[in-house]
């Protein structure tokens, strides 16, 4: 293709996005669009999969059968989200094995929040309420993103996520209205998950170089800081209902901006965790890599069996 032709295609492409057309797998797309989407969608998929671990950690110890069943269902949903998202990424020409390989070698990232440990039952509440809450804010915007398979996966995921968030909030509510030890447990979980949740929206806008491009492709519809503000403004009243205290002495209502002012995020911690030195980065990767390596013989067997069966079928067809 001539440069002229490419430029033409690119212009058409941008125009389609501008008028809210969905881009589909077979459509022409700029290479950078493809790569950016592979990166973001697979990162999102990885986050679902790694995100199974901190909650999976409490399945065997859930305090009641009702909660155990709900937690299993939730973690199972996360696995399901991983599936849709890997499928969406595969439409862009990358295999699931390649994506796993990127995860296991540290080339691909996943949401840093899952590098914090789930230490008490209340963390199941806090993760649902805060982490899923923050995720939804990020994801709702993505329901209108330009890449069709991703947008459609998002619609489905958002629906389930908001159910998870309500479930998490309900866990917190029960604890906050329970015995003093339960309320302490809830407050402690909020203390530990509050700041990492704020970090989920990424660095400040002035340190987030990809924002402009992502906005154009509708991979982002608001900036990190805007989303973070939205999350805080939505969450503070929820904490009030719980009777819990947000662990930020600088948090206060700003009448002028009709939102909350809040304290400085510990960006050193943010970067430490992103770079692989959070409390559980090593543990999480070990768990994923072990699962993968210990499962190799199972996957090999499934493949060999499928080959045998299709061979047999072919023979019978002849």
């Amino acid at each position, binding site marked *: 293709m001539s440069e002229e032709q490419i430029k033409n295609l690119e212009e058409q492409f941008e125009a389609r996005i501008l008028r809210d057309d969905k881009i589909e797998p077979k459509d022409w797309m700029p290479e950078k669009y493809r790569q950016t989407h592979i990166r973001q969608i697979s990162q999102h998929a990885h986050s679902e999969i790694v995100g199974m671990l901190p909650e999976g950690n409490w399945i065997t*110890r859930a305090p009641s059968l009702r909660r155990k069943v709900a937690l*299993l269902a939730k973690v199972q949903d996360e696995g399901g989200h*991983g599936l849709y998202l890997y499928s969406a990424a595969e439409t862009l020409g990358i295999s699931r094995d390649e994506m796993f390989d990127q995860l296991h070698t540290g080339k691909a990232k996943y949401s840093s929040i899952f590098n914090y440990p789930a230490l008490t039952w209340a963390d199941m509440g806090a993760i649902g309420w805060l982490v899923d809450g923050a995720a939804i804010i990020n994801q709702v915007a993505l329901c209108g993103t330009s890449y069709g398979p991703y947008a459609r996966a998002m619609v489905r995921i958002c629906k389930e996520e908001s159910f998870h968030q309500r479930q998490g909030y309900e866990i917190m509510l029960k604890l906050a209205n329970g015995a003093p030890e339960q309320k302490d447990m809830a407050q402690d979980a909020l203390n530990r998950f509050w700041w990492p949740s704020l970090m989920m929206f990424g660095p400040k806008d002035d340190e987030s170089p990809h924002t402009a491009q992502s906005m154009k492709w509708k991979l982002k519809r608001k900036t990190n800081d805007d989303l973070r503000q939205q999350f805080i403004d939505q969450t503070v009243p929820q904490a009030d209902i719980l009777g819990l205290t947000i662990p930020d002495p600088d948090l206060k209502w700003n009448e002028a901006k009709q939102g909350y002012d809040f304290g400085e995020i510990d960006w050193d911690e943010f970067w430490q965790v992103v770079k692989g030195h959070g409390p559980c980065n090593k543990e999480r990767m070990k768990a994923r890599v072990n699962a993968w390596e210990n499962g190799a013989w199972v996957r090999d067997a499934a493949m060999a069996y499928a080959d045998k069966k299709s061979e047999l079928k072919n023979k019978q067809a002849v």
Partner: protein
Amino acid sequence: MKNENLYNYILGIADNNLILGQRLGELCGHGPTLETDIACTNISLDLLGQVRSFYQYAAKIAGDGRKEDDIAMLRKERDYLNVLLVEQPNTDFGYTIARQFLFDVYHFLMLTELEKSQDLTLSAIATKSLKEVSYHKRFSSDWIKRLGDGTSESHDRIQMAINDLWTYTDELFHQTEADKVMVAEGIGVDVTKLKDDYYNQVGNILEEATLEIPERKYFQKGGKQGIHTEHLGYLLAELQYMQRAYPNMEW
């Protein structure tokens, strides 16, 4: 307790679900593929969903103020009535699948009979469960075939798991005192009558999977009398942790 036999009969069924569900729950997030991970979690979910119905009914029968979670999580080790098979550890995916398969075939046969129970609650739970368990059985049978007739490594591994766990199959067909009374009353299933069907079905699948049917003279038993393997204590320490550490609270 007025109807202790019925109560014990229900636990004899439900504890299998609880312990197997708990074992599968340990694996969540650690499966060999995303699909099997989701499937095993789903089976755990089904089993524990069913168990809630059973324990709720047991709590009603007990009538002493205990609720489902008290029954599930506040008994002593010697009071759990599950068979030894379901408490065996997740040694590897082969053992997980072999355990599941050896239980599913039994579970399906048992529920099919339980559906005919004169006790309408049990019959209703059986009906609801059968649909799920039929899926479990298909899942585990398919994997027995895949692993048995997959690679030589998978063949050897699943054969070893089958051989090891075979010793726990006979116990499935032992009648407890509660069983006998419940069978006589038209409520319980006569498990002794399921045995031939069970070994036939299991044998057919193993054969299809190019696996050998273990020959065994000796079997292990005891679970139905609360005499378990040393594995169960550790499982219970986790299962009961919250209820023990935070007694009398709502969650």
